[in-house]
């Protein structure tokens, strides 16, 4: 019988990084080494510990990384608590890749890109940002606006400082919600910061973060003159199968796991408001 997507493969956790007090980044490889499967930026995978649970996570590493996949995971439920408690060397199950991807080889090519992320919302965008950095010639200006509750809650802070900030070809603007000792950067919410920075409306925007942040960011972008067709986001709903059959992530005639998770805002506008 052919392989069935519902039957998972094994992944070995080879590295665990504590990014923030409640976010860890896990490095996953196949038992024989190398990646379990290839993916495109924005796609997701089902991770599971049998007996504990299974859930969909966005793949935060770039496809240009040929050795491993990474997942940045926030502790918020049964499975994520278990994942946070595990040690290096643990095997988990993994299946995927699921969903569409950001159109990095399509509509985004040649465009000026603006990434806007809040908190753990950086996880899916990090994949795209690193993909773009590795294929820098294919894209125009690149700007990242990233904010979090506090300095400690900025995911991948080390990579941001050491690699992105050091990269002369991209611009990074960080912000945190409230003033904090040892922070001399910008303070304020992401949507307001975006308005302050007033990026050029020629850019194509990729935004991800808490729903409330996305809502206000989109409103701010519209004020600045951006249109809905310029803005992409990635969604999250409860999922079980990952292939548009189990019915959970259904919004209108779309299944977020299969037709999403990446949507342009004009596409989202056609769907019923139930997410």
């Amino acid at each position, binding site marked *: *019988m*052919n392989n*069935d*997507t*519902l*039957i*998972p*493969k*094994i992944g070995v956790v080879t590295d665990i990084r504590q990014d923030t007090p409640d976010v860890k980044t896990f490095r996953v490889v196949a038992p024989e080494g190398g990646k379990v499967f290839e993916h495109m930026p924005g796609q997701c995978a089902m991770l599971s510990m*049998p*007996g*504990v*649970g*299974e859930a969909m996570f966005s793949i935060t590493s770039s496809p240009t990384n040929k050795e491993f996949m990474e997942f940045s995971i926030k502790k*918020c*439920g*049964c499975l*994520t608590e278990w994942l946070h408690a595990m*040690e290096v*060397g*643990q*095997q*988990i*199950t993994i299946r995927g890749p699921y969903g569409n991807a950001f159109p990095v080889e399509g509509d985004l090519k040649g465009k000026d890109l603006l990434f806007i992320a809040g908190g753990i919302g950086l996880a899916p965008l990090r994949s795209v940002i690193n993909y773009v950095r590795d294929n820098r010639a294919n894209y125009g200006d690149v700007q990242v606006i990233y904010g979090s509750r506090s300095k400690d809650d900025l995911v991948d802070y080390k990579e941001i400082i050491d690699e992105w900030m050091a990269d002369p070809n991209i611009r990074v603007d960080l912000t945190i919600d409230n003033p904090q000792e040892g922070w001399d950067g910008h303070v304020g919410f992401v949507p307001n910061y975006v308005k302050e920075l007033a990026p050029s409306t020629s850019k194509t925007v990729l935004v991800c973060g808490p729903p409330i942040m996305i809502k206000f960011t989109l409103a701010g972008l519209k004020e600045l003159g951006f249109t809905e067709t310029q803005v992409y986001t990635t969604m*999250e*709903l*409860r999922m*079980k*199968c990952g*292939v548009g*059959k*189990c*019915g*959970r992530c*259904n919004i*209108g*005639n779309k299944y977020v796991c299969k037709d999403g998770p990446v949507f342009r805002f004009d596409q989202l506008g*056609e769907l*019923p408001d*139930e*997410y």
Partner: protein
Amino acid sequence: MLKISKSRLGELFDAVAAKQTLYIPTDREPGAAEYKKYESGMELTKELNTVRSAKDFFFPQTENLADFKIEGKTIEVKDIREECGDFVVFGVRACDARSFTILDKVFLCEPVDSFYKNRRDHGTVVTMACSRPAETCFCQTFGIDPTSPEGDAACFDDGESIFFKANTEKGQAFIDSIASLLEEGDTAKLDEVNAKTKEIMAKLPLAKLSTGNFGGDKLNEYFNSDKWAELSEACLGCGTCTFVCPTCQCYDIRDFNTGHGIKRFRCWDSCMYSDFTKMAHGNPRLTQLERFRQRFMHKLVYFPANNNGEFGCVGCGRCLAKCPISMNIVKVMKALEEK
């Protein structure tokens, strides 16, 4: 057309069951029929249809997907799939036969569900034309002709004999396998029976129900309708409608710790349940209104939007008969159409 006298139906069942597993609808108690594995002497029900639909044969209520063995930090995945044996489901009604086409659209589209396909490949569906539709029947709303059901092979009952007609190769193979029991028969009486059934069909209380006002393009109009509050008001949030429905296909995947390994299984789930879309950080369908709306929007709008206008309902009438508060797709359609 080939036929067999009804008095010899038992012989026919015995002959089929000698070669492969045979399931027939039989009476469990007065007024309630269910599909059972045929054993010699078992009689075909006189009920119009079974309480549960026939979807169980291809999409059972629970089934194992994989086993896991965990030792220390290592996990072993066991693929427990096996080629299933050939089987025949006899006596499926036209509505349920159509439901398989609808389930196929979900489970056989890429990526193909191998668990479903396995059973679909090995199952032969032998349908039975209806001659006594009930007041709850509305299959004609969805363009189904109960006097000429789909399925691999179709049977027709003229009161004395059962006639056979093949619709597919698989159905022809089935008829060939029992050819020695069949004889050529005159269909004059059968034509009369069918004409009579059609007369009744035209007189059914729901004969006028039409899908004309529904379809993939009606999303915003109906999603935002103010009728949902009233329609869903009394809904208990149980799964009766979902579980007796031949086309409802939502499922859950769960793990069970047996003490000596983990079994991953899938089971039917219902969008009517409060925890269907519940996540660690919230629930996009918070009240019964949203959950109720989802079920009917899916059947009347979302499904046709993705499947060339085909609706996710076959008009079998099970939810009409079984809903504890008698709220159902017919009432929903009628209410949404009012304006």
